[in-house]
């Protein structure tokens, strides 16, 4: 008897094999990074902007350190899968990260070009280059690509 391989459904809420323990084990650091970003970049953005440079730098480094740790736990989890799921999940993660990067870059360039201010003149910043936005986009693109790739092998 071999060790049971990791399954993508373990971190897919609502699926039969979903396990919140596995989800936290894999995505715990991503959730931590998102929470730090949500409080620092979105909810308490004005208060944080009054902090010293050292304080704000520490906040940014904390987010990206958490992201690096998330990448490590994600790689470990994928390595524990069998060959089929490793291929599907690896492809889905690569697509999600690439699509998120592309989307944020495109959004940023459109913002710099002044498109959003031209359409909605009253609003200030349209910046989405935060971990919170990246989390939402990565999650969306991961579930989208994972669904499409899994359908091939159903």
């Amino acid at each position, binding site marked *: *008897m*071999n*060790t*049971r*391989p990791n*399954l993508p459904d373990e971190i897919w809420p609502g699926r039969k094999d979903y396990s919140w323990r596995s989800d936290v084990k894999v995505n715990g650091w991503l959730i931590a990074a998102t929470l730090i970003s949500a409080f620092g970049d979105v909810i308490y953005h004005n208060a944080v902007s009054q902090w010293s440079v050292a304080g704000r730098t520490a906040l940014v480094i904390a987010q990206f350190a958490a992201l690096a740790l998330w990448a490590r736990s994600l790689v470990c989890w994928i390595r524990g*899968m*069998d*060959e*089929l*799921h490793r291929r599907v999940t690896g492809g889905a993660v690569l697509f999600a990260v690439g699509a998120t990067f592309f989307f944020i870059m495109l959004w940023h360039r459109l913002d710099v070009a002044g498109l959003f201010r031209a359409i909605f003149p009253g609003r200030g910043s349209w910046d989405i280059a935060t971990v919170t936005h990246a989390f939402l986009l990565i999650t969306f693109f991961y579930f989208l690509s994972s669904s499409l790739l899994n359908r*091939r*092998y159903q």
Partner: protein
Amino acid sequence: MKNKLRELRAAKEWSQSDLADKLGVSRQTINAIETEKYDPSLPLAFKVARLFHLPIEDIFEP
């Protein structure tokens, strides 16, 4: 790639989950191989061959 995995598994009266446990893969992988939607890697094909005590070419054909 065509294969005789379903017939061999049925002859042993194993479920897909039983075979998956013996090979250390998921049930979905066994299903994908049996329905010929996925071609296993060479190490996995060797594992299958060893489990059924058959040469690889008797189980998988190009």
